[in-house]
């Protein structure tokens, strides 16, 4: 009887490891930027490239920074969720238009709706590197002190909004 108990024990432990391991998403790499100040940038606005916007302009407010691009398939899936969310007026959503063509980006917003208070252009992806962007879309929650409090890798879904982002934003807004 004891002979079978040991392999059975090992088997159960292995199943336990696999059960956890198979549920983890290897694409979600924990960001070292959580609880660090949002990397500084000054970038041209999408609609009016003459004007620039900086993360400093948002000090004192809680805001979302959503990295998107017209060439990004998952962004398209995420877009209606953001459009709906922006109508709830809970928190301003800013768009970081990542490595995109300005004309394409404007056409995309015109066609699918614009959930962003403002979008800024990161044409060469430099600021994307500073923010550790590797899988568009990505969404950052930034608090009143300009500190990143949460990062969503991949599309935001209504479930993630309700379970994580909205409660966090409400808490940060105080």
């Amino acid at each position, binding site marked *: 009887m004891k002979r079978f108990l040991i392999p059975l024990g090992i088997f159960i432990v292995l199943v336990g490891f696999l059960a956890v391991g198979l549920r983890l998403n*290897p*694409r979600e*790499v*924990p*960001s*070292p*930027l959580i609880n660090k100040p949002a990397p500084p940038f000054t970038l041209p606005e999408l609609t009016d490239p003459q004007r620039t916007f900086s993360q400093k302009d948002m000090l004192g407010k809680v805001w979302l920074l959503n990295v998107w691009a017209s060439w990004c398939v998952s962004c398209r899936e995420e877009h209606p969720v953001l459009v709906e969310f922006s109508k709830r007026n809970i928190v301003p959503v800013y768009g970081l238009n990542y*490595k995109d063509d300005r004309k394409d980006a404007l056409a995309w917003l015109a066609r699918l709706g614009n959930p962003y208070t403002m979008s800024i252009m990161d044409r*060469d*992806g430099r600021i*994307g*590197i*500073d*923010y*550790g*962007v*590797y*899988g568009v879309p990505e969404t950052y929650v930034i608090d009143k002190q300009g500190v990143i409090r949460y990062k969503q890798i991949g599309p935001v879904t209504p479930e993630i909004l309700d379970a994580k982002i909205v409660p966090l934003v409400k808490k940060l807004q105080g």
Partner: protein
Amino acid sequence: MMRYVLLVCAALLAAAPLYAKQAVPAGDDPVVEKRAVTLEEQLRCLVCQNQTIAESRADLALDLKKEIREQIRAGKSDDQIKQFLVDRYGDFVLYKPPFKATTVLLWAGPFALLLVGVIVLFVYLRRRRARIVQTSLNDEQRSRAEALLSGGKDRA
């Protein structure tokens, strides 16, 4: 003549992969290039995850290659460049992650498993040795064994 032309075409086609390997934008400075490639071979591309930045053709990897070359030209050390990437993407970008609290299991785990294996083997061998009792054959058993052994020889 036609055969000759075909042969030349075939040779050129066969040589194409040689050029393909040089498609990565080569820097003008071979020293910078060598350092950059050595660094890139130690860094993970976050888009393809199982490729190094050197191997990857992903957009992000190309941007990072550019960034690394610019930083080398700006006089940054290898460690500074690695730190720059770790600050943004985490230890995951390093193919050789540092030894620290969160990576103890990663580094020490295999040795711990090896140790467990050696202990199990040792215990098993000792128990087995204790179980083996020396027994001698009586005459009847010996003659049967000999008969069986010689019988095997006959068949062969």
